[in-house]
């Protein structure tokens, strides 16, 4: 979806103004710690995947997305998923009081303290093998599709319609567009090299390239 999260090339946000690396804490408030931990812990319940999680944050009103801090966006996304997936009700979210019991199957999936390190170390790969060979080879010239799905996609707006070269083939991975809709599909993934002048026009700086990972269905041969 073409919403506020798709920030590449936007103007008007001002300077980066980084906090010093030496003094910036990992979390700026205690509630940020909790927002991270709750998001990670509930993710292990297996009721949603990373793309559904991203989609929940992105599909907020763009004004909310841009006004809120990063962890506020995480919190909004988490509240939305918990309700949508039926883990809590709107009423429970509003009151903070449990009105129903959690079923046994779900309780058996709860991440226990002693399993945390193991679970984080294990991670979850996005690789998904498929039978079809890759359509493109390294060095092929491709054009990113000019399409505008209303649902989640990982093809940023600034590459759509633009031409580049296949830099690398990264095997096949779960397609985020389908994954965000709860459907697991594997597709070949490529890294595409774009010249800055192709993306930003002839006045853009020379000696500047942007590499973007794009799935096969995002690309046409050019």
């Amino acid at each position, binding site marked *: 979806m073409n919403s506020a999260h798709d*920030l*590449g090339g936007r103007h008007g946000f001002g300077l980066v103004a980084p906090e010093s690396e030496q003094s910036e804490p990992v979390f700026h408030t205690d509630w940020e710690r909790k927002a991270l931990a709750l998001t990670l812990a509930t993710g292990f319940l297996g009721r949603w995947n990373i793309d559904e999680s*991203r989609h929940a944050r992105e599909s907020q009103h763009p004004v909310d997305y841009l006004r809120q801090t990063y962890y506020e966006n995480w919190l909004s996304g988490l509240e939305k998923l918990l309700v949508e997936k039926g883990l809590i009700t709107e009423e429970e979210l509003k009151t903070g009081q*449990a009105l129903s019991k*959690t079923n046994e199957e779900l309780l058996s999936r709860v991440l226990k303290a002693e399993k945390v*390190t193991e679970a984080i*170390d294990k991670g979850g790969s996005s690789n998904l093998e498929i039978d079809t060979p890759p359509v493109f080879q390294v060095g092929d010239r491709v054009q990113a599709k000019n399409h505008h799905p209303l649902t989640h996609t990982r093809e940023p707006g600034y590459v759509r319609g633009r031409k580049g070269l296949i830099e690398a083939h990264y095997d096949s991975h779960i397609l985020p567009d389908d994954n965000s809709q709860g459907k697991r599909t594997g597709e070949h993934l490529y890294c595409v090299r774009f010249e800055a002048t192709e993306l930003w026009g002839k006045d853009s700086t020379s000696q500047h390239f942007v590499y973007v990972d794009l*799935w096969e269905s995002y690309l046409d041969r050019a």
Partner: protein
Amino acid sequence: MTSHQHSTVPSDPELRVKSLESLLVEKGLVDPKALDELVDLYETKIGPRNGAKVVAKAWKDPEFKKYLLQKPTEAISSQGYRGRQGENMKVVENTSNIHNVVVCTLCSCYPWPVLGLPPVWYKSAPYRSRVVSDPRSVLEEFGTFLEEDVEIRVWDSTSEIRYFVLPEAPKSFHKKTLQQLESMVTRNSMIGVEKITDPDNPL
């Protein structure tokens, strides 16, 4: 902000988190000790010192550097860093004429096992919007001034591949111990917004 329809202004996030936490604990959906464990992991164990160790080793050990560039996930795992948000790593090497810098324009993808959680600026709209279109001015804000003929490569982390910059070694690297080198590696140099400052050969 009255002309658009969006949800009512959310209440204080501190209250919202507190209320959500107690609800999820009451429903048995989270183990409070697991929450503490997760926070502790990212606050004290998984952070940019991990990445600094990998970089220093690559500078000192050419065989490891080759391994790191060819099989990054495996090489990093061999040093004990693996898992969530680092399942598929790619290492890009900075040299005197190529400068790599990493971003996630769509959200905040970042190589957690080697760098920990991203700093606020990495997740911010100014960085995400500008570094793909105007990287030189963004780098200058970090005090990084590149020669005109240096090629800039910006890596937008749109997939689950996680990018990690191997910064250019300081000129005095052969005179330093592994530990000394580790302490010179900044988090920002492994994102690609800074170069390594060499106290023996200041710019």
